[in-house]
């Protein structure tokens, strides 16, 4: 009895086929460069700062699903959980350049950082202005040691949304980069899961848990978390995500937040709504207003049955950027 079969053809073809399927689904929004695994706007924008992001695959709809007006210009896809190459990112950075420079939005992982940084240098050599925003929101990987630092997870959505809005409105590269860094500084994420995820082609998950355990502090690459906590009702688990975020961000009564309740791939809508409900309750109890929120699966870890919550301490400007029009496969308003 196997419970981990998947709808794929060959593990090696998963990403290229999925990108083809995505492009075929959104021909009015997306163009595909199959050779470099790039998804870009079908009608490239000009005279504005270009936004490029990307990273390993397995996090869909991130990033390709966020390409479009008001968000990304280009998304670069690596293999599952593996950074795209410097050459791919270079091609993506070049493609994103509409004449006003390019903002790279990079989740903090060694491979991504390295390849985006190299691509930035290559593009700079070509005469493209490039700035980078490093997203490192994952509270679980916070540490005093000088290691690789906090991982980049779902706050990348908030960064892409708000920077995308500014770019569309004609802001210049340093301004957008500064706002992006500000969003990162104001954002933290925590995640937990009831099950490990299963790589395409594998038949068993990367890790398994006992019925009374929950893996706490997971990232988005199927890795183990920082520890195990007892399995509990959704309300209690939600509180264990929300409370450390509030404390770490030092959120006070009256503070508005932008929140993302994010399924990690195998979590279904009823569960996410139940978790969202409790997040609202917990925040309300502390006098914190959820000014805006997303509830859905946006930054996934293949089919992982887990959830992350991201809070961003918002202000009127950030909310205005959030509210600005967007038209992508995944977010449209």
């Amino acid at each position, binding site marked *: 009895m196997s419970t981990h079969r998947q709808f794929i053809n060959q593990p090696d073809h998963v990403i290229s086929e999925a990108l083809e399927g995505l492009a075929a689904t959104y021909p009015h929004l997306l163009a595909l460069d199959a050779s470099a695994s790039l998804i870009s706007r079908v009608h490239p924008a000009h005279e504005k700062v270009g936004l490029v992001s990307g990273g390993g695959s397995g996090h869909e709809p991130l990033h390709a699903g966020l390409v479009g007006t008001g968000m990304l210009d280009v998304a670069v896809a690596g293999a599952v959980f*593996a950074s795209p190459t410097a*050459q791919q990112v270079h091609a993506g950075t070049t493609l994103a350049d509409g004449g006003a420079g390019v903002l790279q939005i990079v989740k903090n992982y*060694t491979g991504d950082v390295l390849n985006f940084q190299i691509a930035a240098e290559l593009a700079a050599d070509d005469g493209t202005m490039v700035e980078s925003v490093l997203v490192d929101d994952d509270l679980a990987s916070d540490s005093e040691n000088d290691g690789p630092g906090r991982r980049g997870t779902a706050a990348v959505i908030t960064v892409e949304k708000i920077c995308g809005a500014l770019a569309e409105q004609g802001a210049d590269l340093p301004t957008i980069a500064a706002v992006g860094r500000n969003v990162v500084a104001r954002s933290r994420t925590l995640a937990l899961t009831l099950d490990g995820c299963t790589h395409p082609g594998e038949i068993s998950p990367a890790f398994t848990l006992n019925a009374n355990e929950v893996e706490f502090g997971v990232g988005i690459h199927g890795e183990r978390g920082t520890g195990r906590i007892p399995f509990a009702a959704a309300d209690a688990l939600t509180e264990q995500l929300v409370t450390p975020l509030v404390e770490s961000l030092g959120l006070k009564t009256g503070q508005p937040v932008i929140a993302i309740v994010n399924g990690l791939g195998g979590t279904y809508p009823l569960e996410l709504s139940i978790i969202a409900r409790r997040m609202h309750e917990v925040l309300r109890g502390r006098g914190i207003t959820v000014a805006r929120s997303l509830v859905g699966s946006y930054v996934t870890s293949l089919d992982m049955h887990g959830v992350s919550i991201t809070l961003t301490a918002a202000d009127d400007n950030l909310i205005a950027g959030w509210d600005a029009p967007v038209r992508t496969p995944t977010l449209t308003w």
Partner: protein
Amino acid sequence: MSTTIDGTTAHAWITEFTRTFTHAQQRLTDLDRLAGDGDFGTNIASALRRVDNILPATADATYRTVFTAASLGFLGTGGTSGPLFGMWFRHVARSGNDSATLSELTDGVASGLATVQYLGGAKVGDNTMIDALAPAADALKDAAASHLSIAEALEKAALAGRSGALSTGDLIAKRGRASYVGELARGVLDPGAVTIALFFEAGATVTGSSQLWPELGTEVTTQ
């Protein structure tokens, strides 16, 4: 004896490097398996295939086009070593044009080293390719200052790279890995450092060195 590295020599250098790397590939993968994730051989081999695909024909080759091909091939590769080698080759390529003098090559190698250190943040002694690349770069600088020939300079760089690579076997032990693999760790060289040595050995060979370069890292004891 030529005073520059022209396109033909550069082409031969990359070809010889590919040959010796291919010979060593499995061994280097084994080293990566002992201290890393075991994909080193695959990563570099796929980079070299990519290089081979875009390498100019010998007749058309210039120093810059050959090493630019090497750079692009590596930059199109995953892993940590791919992009770092790619950036290093990029600086090497940009140090010359149709051909490069020893001092141009020396500058390219040094500025490539600086970029790799900037990007990767590793210093000598951190058990990476830097442990071979830094002494090789120093050896080239000394050779250029002493007005040695390119062949002599590359032979000195190769020897310096080798001993740098060999030093990584001890480094691992020093840095505490000995606590769980003990004496077994002796000889577990860093595959990136070994690859740097292979590269300069290939350069020495194609410019006329008669040195034999015994295999590095064969004494590896699998755990």
